[in-house]
């Protein structure tokens, strides 16, 4: 009876292990798919940037033109799944203080949030929210509040810019979406891999 019980438990663990292995492989498959799409999107973006540089001149699109006036980003990331444990602190000798440790309880999910400054209302609005972020309270609208304005990066390169530069901007925006998907897949794959290794260890010990 005891042997039958332990056999059932062993079978249950193996089923769980199979499930986790399949989950891991699915995440890795998604990861590889997203990597390929990211590469293609980035390549398109670089081509458009090169075309814009050819049209407008190399000096018109270069890093010295990046604005160093204080400004906020119009694309930020919302992180779910991680929480700050205020009782666990780790010492940081260089800072001579302690900082709260981030504890991860499961796969971390990233969500891209785009911010558009609404000058009429003198506040920032969130657009293109993913998943259930659209139901968040007004507190979420204050993420970019402060003295900094968001900036339109195209304006750094002149009033009239090549359509290739706009196209490059669109490609890199798409690449940003893919980066977030890639990170989510990476987080899932790492989490599933961790589960597989623990279950294998448990099965070996039994």
């Amino acid at each position, binding site marked *: 009876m005891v042997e039958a019980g332990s056999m059932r438990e062993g079978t249950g663990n193996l089923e769980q292990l199979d499930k986790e292995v399949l989950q891991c492989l699915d995440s890795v498959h998604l990861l590889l798919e997203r990597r390929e799409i990211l590469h293609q999107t980035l390549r398109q973006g*670089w081509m458009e940037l090169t075309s814009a540089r050819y049209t407008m001149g190399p000096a018109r699109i270069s890093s010295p033109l990046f604005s160093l006036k204080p400004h906020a980003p119009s694309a930020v990331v919302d992180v779910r799944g991680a929480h700050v444990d*205020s009782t666990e602190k780790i010492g940081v000798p260089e800072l001579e203080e302690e900082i709260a440790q981030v504890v991860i309880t499961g796969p971390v999910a990233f969500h891209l949030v785009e911010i558009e400054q609404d000058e009429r209302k003198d506040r920032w609005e969130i657009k293109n929210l993913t998943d259930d972020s659209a139901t968040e309270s007004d507190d979420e609208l204050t993420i970019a509040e402060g003295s900094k304005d968001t900036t339109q990066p195209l304006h750094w390169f002149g009033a009239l810019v090549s359509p290739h530069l706009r196209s490059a901007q669109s490609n890199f925006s798409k690449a940003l979406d893919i980066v977030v998907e890639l990170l989510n897949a990476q987080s899932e794959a790492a989490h599933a891999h961790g589960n597989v290794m623990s279950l294998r260890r448990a099965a070996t010990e039994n």
Partner: protein
Amino acid sequence: MAAAQATARSSSLIAIIGDEDTVTGFLLAGVGNVDLRRKTNYLVVDTKTTIKAIEDAFKDFTNREDVAIVLISQYIASMIRFQIDSYNKPLPAILEIPSKDHPYDPSQDSILSRVKHMFSAEPTSSRS
């Protein structure tokens, strides 16, 4: 003892370490941030950039609380591979991306290597 916990869901920045074209592209997409001290969340790496400058930028971005993702071109990550491999914090997340002149090398991807290792280990039942 129940730990007092606060959900860290505040929106965070995306930092970039890459060549001029990659950084320009992502800045066009709107990830650029400059604070009141003119501190940026990006580093443009060119032929004059030293390895120390890259290491310092990586260390700075990974220690900032307002950064959730650090994008780094894979060929630049290879220059500071030891520092990248020793990095084990969950946040900010590090993502190596291809660059214009250096395609992505999957053999250097840590997740893929770990999964490959998981399946390439010899099973104990196959031993005679």
